[in-house]
Structure formats: structure tokens, C-alpha cells
């Protein structure tokens, strides 16, 4: 099987994607457009592929519980990142709406000494601006902000709500549609509208 190509311009592209992720993390619950930098494998969004190329390397363990082998091959080829099946070892987990085989309660939430040793979840979503609406508050948000999301794994809200009692530990979430991203770090609190 042949892997799809990676970034055309690895240095500048990964810097641009990294900058977008940083902006999105510092302004939670706000949608940021992510240009199309690469096609990636067919079972991943081009945006997820771009994030993978930017954040994954041989030191990060990736949990990708999907029957689709092409994405795993692609991640191994381009990022050199080991694919793990164990939730507690995962630095990043890619979760689409169809992902069923993942046990969210075993994911790494970090320790009180090293809260950063936690899993960052990358949720693939159908779209933003439609579907259920939420009100978000927390650091990086002036008062409150609203967003809506459609076509996302059913457990996502439970994970974000759970963060409240775990701080400083917890799970950071990156929500990715086929053309934009929205981040919900562990400090963001949600309320259904």
C-alpha cells in the first residue's frame, strides 16, 4: 500500500499549523480555520492529518482505534510515531464518531506532579455552527462564548464535564472538522444550551 504524501513544505506548513493550534488552545471554544496543507490518508480529515504531522513524532504514542489501516500506516511513515492500543500510554488519541473500541476512563489524565503527562484527544466532528449548542467559560474566554457542534463521538461531553473534578489533571480536547479546529482545554467548563 502506498502512503499519501505529507506536507509539501514541512517547515513552514508545520509552523503555520502549530500557530493555529496554539491560538485555538489559548482561545478555547472559538473556531479557527485550518487551511488544507495536505491530503492525508482517506480515513482522516486533511485537518487531522495536518495536526498529526505537526504534533506527532517518535516520542508520542498514538491511540488510533480504527479498522482503517491506512491512517496508522500513514502516521507511522510520516511521523514515526508508535501506535499503541493501550489507553494509559497514549499521548494523543484520534476519536471519530465511529470509534467504539476506546475505553475513555483508562486514558492518561496525568499525575498531580506531572499533570501534562495526559492524553490529548483529537475528536473528528462533522461540522461546527450546527447541531447542539453549548456555552463555554474559563481561562481564555472573556465572559462566556457559545459554539455548536454536530456529528461527534457521544462520550465527548462527559469527558469535558469530568475535567472539572480532575484539575490540575484532565484531558485536553481538540475538535476538528474537515476545515477548522476548536479547542477545549481542561480548564474550559461547558453548559448545554
Amino acid at each position: 500500500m502506498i502512503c499519501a504524501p505529507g506536507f509539501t513544505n514541512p517547515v513552514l506548513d508545520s509552523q503555520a499549523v502549530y500557530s493555529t493550534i496554539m491560538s485555538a488552545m489559548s482561545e478555547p471554544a472559538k473556531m479557527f480555520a485550518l487551511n488544507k496543507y495536505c491530503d492525508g490518508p482517506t480515513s482522516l480529515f486533511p485537518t487531522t492529518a495536518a495536526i498529526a504531522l505537526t504534533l506527532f513524532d517518535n516520542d508520542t504514542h498514538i491511540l488510533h482505534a480504527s479498522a482503517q489501516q491506512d491512517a496508522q500506516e500513514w502516521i507511522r511513515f510520516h511521523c514515526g510515531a508508535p501506535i499503541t492500543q493501550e489507553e494509559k500510554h497514549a499521548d494523543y488519541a484520534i476519536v471519530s464518531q465511529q470509534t467504539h473500541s476506546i475505553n475513555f476512563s483508562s486514558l492518561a489524565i496525568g499525575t498531580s506532579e506531572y499533570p501534562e503527562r495526559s492524553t490529548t484527544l483529537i475528536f473528528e466532528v462533522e461540522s461546527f455552527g450546527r447541531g447542539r449548542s453549548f456555552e463555554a467559560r474559563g481561562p481564555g474566554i472573556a465572559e462566556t462564548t457559545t459554539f455548536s457542534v454536530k456529528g461527534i463521538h457521544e462520550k465527548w461531553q462527559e469527558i469535558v464535564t469530568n475535567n472539572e473534578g480532575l484539575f490540575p489533571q484532565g484531558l485536553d480536547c481538540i475538535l476538528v472538522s474537515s476545515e477548522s479546529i476548536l479547542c477545549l482545554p481542561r480548564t474550559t467548563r461547558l453548559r448545554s444550551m
Partner: protein
Amino acid sequence: MISLSYTVQQRQEWMRLLAMAPTQELEKFWDNFQNKPEYQILRQPEVGLAMIKAQSCGTGQPFHFGEIPLSRSAVNIAGKVGHGYVQGRSTSHALHMAICDALLQDDSSRETLEQTLLAPIAQGLENKKKQREAALLKTKVDFFTMVRGEDDQ
């Protein structure tokens, strides 16, 4: 299991030759190549570092000798994925090596490449080795011990 029309040893040999060939030779070969097939770059040529491991002697502990710059690239030509890994910072060498590797995996072009590219490279490397040997031979010193006559006593 994919059945290949070449052996692993064959590929190892052509990878060795491609990696050791002078960059200009590969560039010239590709420039003059007739009916260039389209190639898709899977991995843009990039330079990184590779750690060299060494052993102080046959039974010694392995240790990290140091790092060398390494260029690599990967291309896809009509379903054949060619890789280029070469010591040094020549991204062009890595890219051309990847292209040649992909072409060599293809039955229709392998023979041509073996004759027009690999054979001259092998010849060139052989000549270079001989030249170096000849240059070194001039300074060869034979150490021998003269008979001291002690055995007779």
C-alpha cells in the same frame, strides 16, 4: 506477502551503489532520462541526524560514536515507492536516489538502469578504490626482522 521480481540482496546492492554514487552522476542520469515518468513526492527531501553506534572491539560494549547528517526522501512512481537515504546534506542526492530506487523496482526499467546507471557507478567506485590503493601502495613499508642467527646456536 507480496512477491517481488527482485531479491532483497539485489535491492540492497543497488541502494548501496546509489548512496555511494556522486550526486552529479545521479542528477545527470535523471536529466538525460528519456520519457521521464511522473513522480509524486511522498516525503519531501529533508536533512536529519543519525546516531552511529560502534563497538570498541569484538566483545566491547556498544557506544554512541557520534551523529552524522543524513538526507532522506521518498517518492511514488506508478505504485512503486522509492526511498533515498544518503549520508550528508545533499537533498538532491536523496531525491534522485529515491527516484532511481522506484525505477529499479519496476521490471520494465530495471535492466536499462542496471546497465546505464548502476554499472558505470560500480565501475567508478571500483576505479576510485584502485586509485586510492595505488596511491597508498607507494608509501607501503615492509617490516621484517632480519635473521639474528640465534636459532643456530
